[in-house]
């Protein structure tokens, strides 16, 4: 599908930023720089979520991924004090790896073209709302809308997929308890005994 107007600009911006910074992240020498570039990639991904009206997922992406997971990553990198990489970037393995990934990419694009069946190049349907027709969510008369996205996510998560949800939280709990147990030293156990 072909995007028009501002939407296209933003999409290409976010997409290019995401891919480019991912490449930079892999090739960065300093581990902290890598983490920061990963943060940029994740923020660009959140932007992409916003473009498909999944604003709840976008907000949660930044809150959890950037504010939680990446902060912890950075904690660990800083405490462990990972040294800078000094290796030479251009080795013989790079050429072989490059050739391999080129052929893999060709294969993936072929499969995508096959499955999308030409949907890449159709226009947006003319009945989709354009920017000019957006109703003002006027602040004089309240709209009282939780975004449809939030409602849908909430409803699905807590009714249809509640079992995987609970299992996921249990797994996290087990991980936390295990980590605390491993980190405790002998003498602390003596104090508790």
């Amino acid at each position: 599908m072909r995007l028009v107007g501002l939407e296209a600009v933003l999409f290409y911006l976010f997409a290019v930023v995401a891919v480019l910074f991912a490449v930079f992240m892999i090739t960065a020498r300093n581990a902290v720089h890598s983490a920061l570039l990963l943060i940029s990639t994740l923020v660009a991904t959140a932007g992409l979520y916003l473009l498909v009206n999944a604003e709840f997922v976008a907000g949660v992406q930044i809150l959890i991924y950037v504010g939680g997971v990446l902060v912890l990553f950075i904690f660990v990198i800083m405490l462990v004090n990972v040294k800078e990489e000094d290796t030479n970037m251009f080795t013989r393995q790079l050429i072989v790896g490059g050739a391999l990934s080129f052929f893999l990419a060709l294969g993936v694009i072929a499969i995508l073209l096959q499955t999308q069946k030409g949907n890449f190049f159709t226009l947006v349907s003319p009945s989709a709302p354009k920017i000019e027709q957006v109703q003002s969510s006027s602040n004089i008369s309240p709209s009282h809308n939780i975004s449809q996205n939030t409602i849908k996510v909430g409803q699905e998560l807590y009714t249809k997929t509640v079992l995987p949800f609970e299992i996921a939280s249990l797994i996290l709990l087990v991980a936390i308890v295990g980590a605390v147990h491993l980190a405790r030293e002998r003498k602390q156990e003596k104090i508790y005994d």
Partner: protein
Amino acid sequence: MYLFFLTAPTWFSKLPILSDRIDPMVMDYVVWPLVQIGALLFVVLTLIAYLTLAERKISAWIQVRIGPNRVGPEGLLQPLADGIKLLLKEDLIPLKADKEIFVISPIIAMVAALVALAVIPWGAAWGTISNIDIGLLFILAVSSFGVLGIILGGWASNSKYSLLGALRSAAQMVSYEVAMGLALIGALMFTKTLALQDMVISQERLQIWNILFQPVGFLIYLISGVAETNRAPFDLPEAESELVAGYHTEYSGFRFSLFFIAEYANMLIVSAIAVTVFLGGWYLPGLSYLFAPGSTLFVLASIGVFGLKTLALLYLFFWLRWSLPRYRYDQLMELSWKWMIPAALANIVLTASFLVLGQELGLIVSQNNSLKFSIGGYVFLISTAFIITVPLIWIILGQINQRSRDFNLREVQPLPMNRKVNKNN
């Protein structure tokens, strides 16, 4: 797609000089937000500068001193003098520090703080720049982004102790963010929306401030907010008399002022959100009788009301800093994980139970994604909040912390005197 939310007043696109040359659509959707942003940034940055003066003056009056009174009448030009001084200082970057990160961390901290200003409902109608549907989630996400600025600031100082201090600061901020988010959920159940302007409107419709429904939530939010912004009594990681230096040790001049602006902007945002969610935002019970709702005067008056409430909470921040001693770091973390978070969770459970109970009893009706209360509903909710929720949460906290040393601190007894004094050794 819903990228733009119109908040421009009707008269703006009809302004005489510009309406001939610029398309009214562009006026409403492009020029007006730029005007709003410009005005907001100007007002907020000036306010932050004068907040530093207010802090010094308030601390002086509490401590029986006068405070700055040399620069300008009553010291009113002091922030200008401080700003000029900081700008003129030498720009130092430590030798072995990571240059890019050293430069970027105060920027991250300040941008994260200022971006959140865009979604706060400073007033009715066009008093907010952007009323996105996930307003509250956006604010939480952006403040967790600001934690990064602190960590990177400590890292860039190239000193083990600064790094440890910064990491402790960050751990503290993250712990209290959890408590803040949970405390807000209680109020969300009443407003049924994440959009901040709609929260104020729901309080206006119900003609009540959410603090009456959620006293515990307000308290938890306020305490966690003080801890989140690393203010006293929770400022051990950056206190001067401690061994570990804070994250901004190596910063001087303009970069330091960026961290400073970020800290005060964070305080401003925490106060503004507390006012929006719990204290009714720009809504004051008699306001719609004084001015026609929707008129420009109404909006301006509502901005004034919001400003007064926020300033009151900011005064509370300053007052707390100069009255209370400092918590030790482990006590501070214990307060978050063993007191604030269980209380917030219990608050959510109890609030939800009483809402469901109210709906069963017919006192509350939920229609069109909004709640409607009868008089009985109001009485029921407010009384259960104060009579049942508060004591119950206190009991729960007591049970959880039964064996904690801090919970069992003794009361003051008068000292014994003069038992007998040995004359021989």
